[in-house]
């Protein structure tokens, strides 16, 4: 077997894993704190990509990088205040259905505004070209996007482990009622986490837009892998989500060598394997379904 190809695929898996982790991390946080399965997360990702596409076309690449996630965060605030807030504390199925319905409706809005055609974003001039090391060839832009994704992940990790807000969020994942009892504003905490999830979805959209063609259903394409990575890592666990993302990225990439036609099923197989041995995921300490049963 070609060693260079194996190394290239391994490297590609790490890059993909980092990008997948950014997609999954916002999903995981909302699931952990709000105990809401936010099926509109894919939609927020899609809006991030479309906002990035439109803004970068009309202004500049860097303005789009900043503005697109902020706009998505504002959208997610609206979503939380108008819809999601009503289903906190109820069966997670309600949250799933209400966000799923919202996502379907808004996908139609995307088709009305941007049409059904696919779009692509130009690679910025500074990132064009390939990294070439002997037979190893890799997209320079993809490496930069992976570094961007890594920076986001490290910032979230730092924020959650080193700030008092992060500590409250983490505590909220384990026992949200205790947070209220200690005098913290639980509804506000949930709103902030939801908006943070939206911001991360928007950032993921900014990363995804230049990589994959932009189209109305792109959120659906990332929703299930994002959900699976969140479950593999454990609900609300930042470290678990990153490791879950890397595992999925690397195995999917390497699987092309062995079973290229069936790479799609790799994340599902991994999920079954992980949940069989660790029902709460790799680093999870809570399961929303477990709480419902109790």
């Amino acid at each position, binding site marked *: 077997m070609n060693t260079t190809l194996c190394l290239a695929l391994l490297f590609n898996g790490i*890059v993909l894993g980092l990008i997948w982790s950014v997609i999954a991390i916002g999903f995981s946080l909302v699931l952990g704190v709000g105990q809401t399965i936010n099926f509109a997360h894919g939609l927020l990702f899609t809006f991030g990509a479309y906002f990035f596409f439109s803004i970068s076309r009309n202004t500049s690449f860097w303005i789009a990088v900043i503005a697109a996630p902020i706009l998505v965060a504002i959208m997610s605030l609206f979503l939380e205040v108008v819809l999601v807030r009503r289903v906190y504390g109820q069966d997670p199925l309600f949250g799933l259905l209400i966000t799923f319905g919202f996502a379907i409706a808004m996908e139609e809005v995307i088709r009305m505004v941007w049409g059904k055609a696919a779009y*692509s974003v130009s690679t910025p001039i500074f990132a*064009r070209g390939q990294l070439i090391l002997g037979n190893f060839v890799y997209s320079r832009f993809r490496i930069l996007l992976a570094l961007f994704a890594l920076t986001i992940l490290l910032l979230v990790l730092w924020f959650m482990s080193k700030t008092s807000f992060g500590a409250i969020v983490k505590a909220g994942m384990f026992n949200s009622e205790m947070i209220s009892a200690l005098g913290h504003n639980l509804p506000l905490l949930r709103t902030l986490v939801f908006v943070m999830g939206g911001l991360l979805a928007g950032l993921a959209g900014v990363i995804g837009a230049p990589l994959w*063609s932009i*189209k109305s*259903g792109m959120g659906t394409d990332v929703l299930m892998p994002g959900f699976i990575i969140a479950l593999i890592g454990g609900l609300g666990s930042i470290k678990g989500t990153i490791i879950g993302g890397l595992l999925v990225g690397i195995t999917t990439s390497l699987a092309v060598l062995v079973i290229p036609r069936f790479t799609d099923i790799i994340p599902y197989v991994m999920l079954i394997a992980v949940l069989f041995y660790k029902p709460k995921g790799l680093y999870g300490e809570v399961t929303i379904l477990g709480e419902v049963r109790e």
Partner: protein
Amino acid sequence: MKNKLLFFSLTLIALVVFSLVVTAQEPVKIGIVSPKSGNYADHGEMERIGMYLAVEDFGGKVLGRPIELIEVDSETNPDIASRRTKTLIEAQDVKFFLGAVSSSVGIAVGSVCHELGSIYICTNANSDTITGVDANKHTFRVPPNMAILVRGAAKYVAENLGKKWYFVTHDYSWGWSGTEWGRKMLDKVGAVEVGEVKIPMNTRDMSSYLLQLVNSGADVACVTVGGFDGIALYNQMGEFGIFDKMKVWWTLADYPDSYAIPPEQRGRYGMMEIYWKATPELIEFSKRIHDKYPGAIANVTETNSYHGWLGMKALLTAIEKAGTTDVDSVIKSLEGLIICDNKQPDPTYIRPWDHQFIDTMFFGHDIPGAEGDDITEVLFTAPCKDFARTMTENPIDLTK
């Protein structure tokens, strides 16, 4: 007694006249089974635009009766498409169908129409089997099949682009057809295969497949991947610098997809089913599409729109020619039909024995960095009849 007889006669005449008037007003229903979602949603939208324009050309009527178009979303899914087709036939007595885009959907819809006795004109699917092993007397196909497209280009590719071919195959019937014909041409044009990768439908990230391609040592990537997946692949090929390492030959280049790619990342070669500047009529048709549908993908005649238009035009022409909506009569009328005002350099001819439409195709190259509408250079044109399968190669005869 005489008065009674007169009364009954007049009543009978009135009823006959009334029923004739009612029949004359009764719309001719045409089902459009076309994707509004899934991998080919954008292509579906464009083919429907073409169909509506053809109906407009006929003044909205055929045989003096209004035309009623009934759209259903195939969702680019054969099961859903065949179920919805069946419902239209059984619940609304629809006798004529157009649409598809995906070959799997085309095969499924064709099979249902054959079983229930309706005519189906497959407007945008290229798998060989539709007019081959899956052919039936009720199904007609507008675009050239993969045998025509691949055989039309293979010699040029081997002589001018390279002889070591790596196949990139969309993992369903259409993709398999493209690669199968590429393989059949290897010996004939002196090329060799250096590998293949099959890409599942709805794959967005192609990086792992592209790394295999980069390391294959190929001169030419022989690609049969379409829809949003095709656009993603094309875009990521530019990102990975594939066009600097080898030539890329798209066995079927839906050239409007090229407009979705940033100019600096373009560079593929490919066989196109039509070319928007081939005739003044096509340029005019482009303007018409754009005036009517400003949201259309590009300011050019799009392949799917053209085939939607041509399929509908053929059906309505055949109904007029038959003078009836009787299915068997319309089939006879379609078989051997020649459409001269087809906006192409040569007339379109429908072969009676396999129901394949035959006209002209164009081999071109996307010019890297070109801006605006004029982004493709046509290198040669080829008459489909010279490359279509003969009856010996495709032993069916639907006229029997």
